[in-house]
């Protein structure tokens, strides 16, 4: 939780210093995301949980085993960036070995991609966890997720998580939603739901434990809406300035005061290390356009 906050603060500094064109991230969501990350069954394949995150989910990734230095590599567009080879925005992580699906800048695609990852898990113990913000639920894909995951006799093992900060870029929640809570919409599909104070680690952990257990055993969707804050605005496009009116989840936690300084010092060292690494260039831009073909059966005749 503290690591994630320090990392985002470091990334914001890099953007302000002109070393990267853009920052977006998740300060304000760390209590919830850290709790979620601690409960993921991490590994590759359908027997493990598959995460489809959004760009405010980096605390989940850190709890799942990702390293801050790799986020710095992505922020600075280095060839060493393991997530995107210097191609994508900050906090757009992924790791196939850990079932951490790719973050998409266009919000909401994770809603429909989750239908497929969960289907692949129908005969396993793994579940899919889809995470999105409240504004993402404006898109039609949100309705697709609710409809497809509750098809009669064909429910899908998906934990649907909406982190609700009650604003989409600059548009307040109240101006676009007729219902006070997003869970209301899930209930219309017969989905079990809960709401949780997303700033409390204890409450998040308890709610998430129940949610994970439910999906893992019932093999049905579960919907959890977490109220969170957005401490540094939408992104660097809106200045990434601290919103004094937003409550900070770290203020509710007690941790040794020297932690922050130690983490900040280490992150600064990592920044200096990454600066020396080569940036992504035109040659690297040409790679990974295509994946490898599957193994061809030997008995299969091949004609021209």
């Amino acid at each position, binding site marked *: 939780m503290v690591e994630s906050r320090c990392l985002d603060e470091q990334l914001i500094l890099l953007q302000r210093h002109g070393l990267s064109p853009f920052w977006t991230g998740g300060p304000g969501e760390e209590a919830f995301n850290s709790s979620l990350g601690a409960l993921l069954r991490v590994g590759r*394949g*359908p027997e493990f949980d*598959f995460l*489809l995150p959004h760009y405010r989910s980096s605390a989940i990734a850190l709890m799942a085993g990702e390293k801050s230095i790799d986020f710095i590599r992505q922020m600075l567009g280095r060839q060493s*960036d*393991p*997530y*995107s*080879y210097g*191609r*994508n925005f900050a906090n*757009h992580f*992924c*790791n*196939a070995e850990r079932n951490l*699906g*790719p973050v*998409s800048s*266009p919000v909401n*695609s994770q*809603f*429909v*991609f*989750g*239908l*497929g*990852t*969960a*289907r*692949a*898990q129908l005969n396993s113990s793994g579940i*899919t966890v889809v995470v999105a913000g409240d504004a993402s639920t404006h898109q*039609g*894909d949100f309705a*697709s997720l609710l*409809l*497809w995951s509750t*098809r009669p006799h064909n429910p899908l093992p998906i934990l649907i998580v909406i982190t609700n900060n009650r604003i989409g870029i600059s548009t307040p929640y109240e101006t676009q939603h007729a219902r006070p809570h997003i869970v209301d919409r899930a209930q219309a599909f017969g989905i079990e739901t809960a709401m949780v104070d997303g700033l409390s680690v204890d409450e998040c952990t308890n709610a998430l434990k129940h949610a994970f257990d439910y999906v893992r055993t019932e093999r049905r969707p579960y919907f959890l809406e977490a109220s969170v804050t957005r401490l540094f605005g939408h992104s660097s496009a809106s200045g990434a300035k601290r919103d004094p009116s937003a409550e900070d989840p770290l203020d509710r936690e007690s941790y040794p005061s020297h932690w922050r300084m130690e983490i900040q010092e280490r992150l600064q060292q990592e920044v200096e290390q990454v600066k020396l690494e080569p940036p992504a260039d035109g040659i690297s831009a040409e*790679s*990974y*356009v*295509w*994946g*490898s*073909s*599957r*193994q*061809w*059966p030997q*008995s*299969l*005749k*091949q*004609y*021209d």
Partner: protein
Amino acid sequence: MATIAQAIRLALHYAERELGVKNIFGQDVGPPLGGAFTMTQGLDSAWNTPLDERGIVGTAAGLAMMGQTSVCEIQFGDYIFNSIDLLRLIGTTCWSTRGQFPMPMVLMTPVGAGNRGGIYHSHSIESILSHLPGWKIVIPSSSRDAYGLMISSILDGNPVAYLIPKALSFCPGELLDGEPDDLKKRINAPLDGRSNWTPDWPACDPFSIPLGKLRIRTAGDTLTLASYGRMIQVIEMALQKIPQDRIRDRVELLDLRTLVPLDLEGIVTSVRKTGRLLIVNEDSEQTNFGEHLLRKVREKAPPHVATLLAARHLPGIGLSQQLEDYTVPTVEQVQRQIEKMLPS
């Protein structure tokens, strides 16, 4: 002789039995209908989805993220536009994740005119799809190609748009390897008794045809015709109307079969020989894939004469036969263009 619809069905049956394909899905793809064009009749892995193209495409993408190749169907190519940003995202994912998520999937959809489908059942989408990096584009014109290219698409490991010229779906085609005489009786569901019907799958010999390799339909040394999909049949009908001594050994008809990857070398080899190139397709002429093809060929082997015959750029293909004929290339138009380009 198998139709394209039967060939696809047989290929998908082989794929679900031998290639690990567990999900073949789309609206009306499962029983009782087995697809609007019957491509998926009788398949164990075929299931019905909600009428929701974004859910269909997204499900295939999610399965791909788990390493499972699936085959999904959008009922008509005309309905693909509400999922266009997902297609863009899918095509970009291998690249933007440093190869971690290569997204193996096949999206099949009927395209093209020729059966009076009106405004929303007639269009061609290959030019638009060709603007989406990371997608391969396949469009067979015969049953053998339909079978072999489907197998290759499933094994390819990337997102493949498999476009089916719908007007050719039920035309008698070519013999598949090991195809029985009573194929229709064995794998076509009866119109009036589908609920209790099960197929009797024949033991056809499986084969593949590589993506990115064109097929020379007829060889010649004076004029290269480059086309694909339904227009192959239209060109062949046009050629039958021209005195054979005028075209014999002079017209080289190339069936491109896949647009991405493109067998550019095969086209260039032909054009170097003939010096004349006519590209025919039924997509709208404005920013047509054929225009791209013309440029690529000109860069390598400038022909003496080269042109594109394509559909008029209008808001739609109208319902009446006259409107369809006015909009997309007809046998007569193709015949006239060939005669115009052939030196006497």
